């Protein structure tokens, strides 16, 4: 077997050194009843060629986003990632290294994390970011639980504009930890309704911008209202490219910003792995979940980086730990950071502008096709009202070769918004794609 270096001769020699008659002897502690006499009932080993064939066949059964007009967003966005990014993350030294617990031989990973943290802080307009979370949805749940630790209050208010998966994840996890989650009704322009719900038991309010319907909101007023009642404002962003154009969460008064970082550096991957961004104001840093990388010096006084403040983490704190996160999303964070380093502030701005311009074109086109656009202010995604169920329209358009977006009912069937369709456009969307959508809409 190509991955197993030991030869039969090696094994015999090693057993001799150990003083065991055979390898079974090394499994002597396994109760006899639980010892499998032979391989389980699954196929036996296969060569690379055969494995590649099976996987290629499975891959070929999927329709790739790049193979035709495609407008899905709703928390995952198809962007163009420079080839350099994927090249670098595949370097052995990044790909096959562990969590940088031995900083002397992990400065590569550590310096990247330090740069990543700085980039995330700048993008979110906050002071400190951690070294990444699993994804945006779990980062959202962690932010809510962090608000509980900071405020010592139990109630979290989730806006109706929050991505339903984020709301569900937060509900599951934060509720398990003992919090009371108030999930507001899904609505296009839901953010205004949040303010009324804030009271003196509120640990935090969670609002998303651009929200799941694509609506861009200045949440400064919500921040004021929350702060007035001693609650924290958590701002969620699922489209990280929007940081290039829109007011940052920090600028608008957020105490915690969480985001899905997939859009920068990472492929769609059918939903994972992605990378959660998490940033806070300076004063909250010691309540923050996740890994942190900090600058220090070595024995010779040279600058270096280490994981730090790990006394907050569960592998150290055991039952006194306060977050569920243990690993992070290191390689995806690396991809994010490389792509962001290539873009720079200048490039991200332009990328964001291109995205917005494409979405404007999309909006004009679907409006011309007679659909009502529900999103008043948008970045690169809009919600439209369909005649009849959106899901049916998506199927009809699929038959015409267009993947027309995400029916809201897919995310939240109980919301009563079956006639709402979410469509996103990015720099990868061409005018031909949009024209194809218009044509399909006309024909459908």
């Amino acid at each position: 077997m190509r991955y197993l270096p030991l030869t039969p001769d090696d094994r015999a020699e090693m057993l001799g050194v150990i003083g065991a008659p055979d390898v079974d002897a090394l499994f002597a502690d396994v109760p006899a009843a639980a010892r499998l006499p032979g391989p389980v009932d699954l196929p036996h080993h296969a060569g690379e060629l055969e494995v590649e064939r099976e996987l290629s066949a499975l891959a070929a059964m999927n329709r790739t986003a790049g193979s035709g007009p495609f407008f899905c967003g709703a928390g995952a966005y198809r962007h163009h990632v420079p080839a350099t990014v994927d090249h670098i993350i595949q370097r052995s030294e990044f790909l096959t290294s562990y969590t940088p617990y031995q900083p002397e031989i992990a400065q590569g990973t550590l310096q990247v994390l330090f740069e990543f943290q700085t980039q995330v802080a700048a993008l979110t307009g906050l002071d400190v970011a951690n070294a990444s979370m699993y994804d945006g949805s779990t980062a959202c749940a962690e932010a809510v639980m962090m608000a509980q630790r900071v405020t010592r209050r139990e109630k979290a208010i989730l806006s109706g504009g929050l991505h339903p998966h984020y709301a569900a994840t937060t509900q599951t996890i934060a509720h398990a930890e003992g919090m009371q989650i108030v999930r507001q009704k899904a609505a296009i322009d839901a953010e205004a309704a949040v303010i009324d719900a804030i009271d003196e038991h509120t640990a935090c309010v969670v609002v998303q911008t651009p929200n799941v319907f694509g609506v861009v909101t200045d949440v400064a007023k919500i921040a004021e209202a929350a702060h007035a009642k001693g609650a924290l404002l958590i701002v969620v962003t699922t489209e990280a490219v929007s940081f290039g154009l829109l007011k940052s969460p920090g600028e608008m008064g957020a105490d915690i910003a969480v985001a899905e970082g997939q859009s920068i550096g990472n492929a769609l991957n059918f939903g994972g792995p992605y990378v959660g961004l998490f940033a806070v104001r300076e004063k909250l840093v010691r309540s923050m979940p996740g890994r942190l990388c900090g600058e220090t010096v070595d024995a010779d006084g040279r600058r270096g980086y280490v994981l730090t403040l790990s006394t907050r983490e569960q592998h150290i704190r055991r039952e006194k730990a306060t977050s569920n996160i243990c690993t992070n999303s290191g390689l995806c964070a690396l991809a994010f950071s490389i792509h962001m380093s290539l873009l720079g502030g200048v490039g991200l701005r332009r990328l964001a502008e291109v995205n917005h311009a494409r979405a404007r074109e999309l909006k004009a086109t679907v409006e011309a096709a007679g659909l009502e656009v529900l999103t008043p202010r948008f970045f690169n995604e809009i919600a439209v009202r369909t005649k009849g169920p959106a899901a049916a329209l998506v199927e009809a358009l699929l038959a015409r070769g267009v993947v027309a977006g995400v029916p809201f009912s897919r995310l939240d069937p109980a919301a009563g918004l079956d006639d709402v369709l979410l469509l996103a456009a990015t720099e990868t969307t061409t005018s031909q794609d949009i024209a194809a959508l218009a044509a399909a809409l006309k024909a459908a």
Partner: protein
Amino acid sequence: QDEPLIFELGGWSKTGVDLPAASADASDLAGLTREAVALPGLSEPEAVRHYVRLSQKNHAIDLALYPLGSCTMKHNPRLNEKAARLAGFSDIHPLQPVSTVQGALALMDRLAHWLKTLTGMPAVALSPKAGAHGELCGLLCIKAAHEAAGQGHRRTVLVPTSAHGTNPATAAFVGYAVQEIAQTEDGRVDLADLESKLGPDVAAIMVTNPNTCGLFERDIIEIAKLTHAAGAYFYCDGANFNAIVGRVRPGDLGVDAMHINLHKTFSTPHGGGGPGAGPVVLSEALAPFAPAPWVVSGSDGLRLAEEATGPAAQAFGRMSAFHGQMGMFVRAYAYMLSHGADGLRQVAEDAVLNANYVKARLCDVMSPAFPDGPCMHEALFDDAWLEGTGVSTLDFAKAMIDEGFHPMTMYFPLVVHGAMLIEPTETESKAELDRFCEALRALAVAAKGNDKDRFKGAPHLAPLRRLDETLAARKPKLAWKPDPAGGA
């Protein structure tokens, strides 16, 4: 050589990405837009050099043995990387119509089948994103099952003293009181102590098997029986499944829930700290409570159960957005297909053989924590042999760096003094193990031979010397800030 930070490379008005000019009309966003983002951009040549230079400051499995006990740093096949990058897997959206992702769903379904067959368990929740996330998922299943059975009053979880920190952390997180189970002289769960603590308030026990001392819990079946008899569930931490895959099915031991770190047993790359993936296999009793989503087979192909309705009505909720770490599923499945049932069994055998070989080759110069009997996939030493040398476990570990190896896991498990936990994994050749053992033997001789400076000052040959972690924690500097004296 010091590598500047990207913020010091000076590209404040630069970009390494060519984009068409947009018709920059953002008038509908008046008042909602920001000023420029203050981040540097690098031209592509500069970026490549920055990251390639940085990468060379890392140790990696691809460079030498990485014997981190409990972390299972094994070879990461490049075939798996290639497979995960097939456009049919990487360029599909989690919410595109299910009729257009039948291959992806089939892969998840087949992966689930392999996991279930290898563990002898009837169900699996694929969505947890890492081991700790899987533990959380497992405990939430258990909690939901108890609540559904009117046993919501069970508020205690029993955990051995040798457990991974994540076990008590997760239990506490879910609101359980954590009680420790004592350990026997020979490094196993103390059955009597367990029995004495198993009462009507106990929701579950959490046991790692093989345990963190690298030992198989001999009484595991009895443990499960006692647990079930007390009305509790048996959560098994599957971090060490690598040691028994293909030879032992946790389901046969009476396990109710176990997470599987795909990055450990099934070799998805650790990537400097993630992403991982932590699917949880479940017993018949717990299966109905698994979180959404999962793959369902129907008359018109595969689809996803994404909502708490129909068969998923008892689901306890959702662990994260979308459907789990698809990219890791592809890699793990490729790994499984490559090994097959026979190869995976060999994985366990070679992992255990390699660990016992290291133990045998070092036991005369270092002190094994449990000298009697075989270990499983990792060899545990304490620091008794260093007594009086002035060299600590940490010093010894840092000196290994100068020999070209990554240190072993140190000071874990907590139950062993100055613990050194060595896990070679099955993908090490005998030649590399010999090189490693020779290096450690020579170091051991040096440590006992009063060559203290070599250890106290180690590492000497790494990109940096020992780092001041106290300073980092005392005055946290967590982001680059412009030099107040000037500069960008």
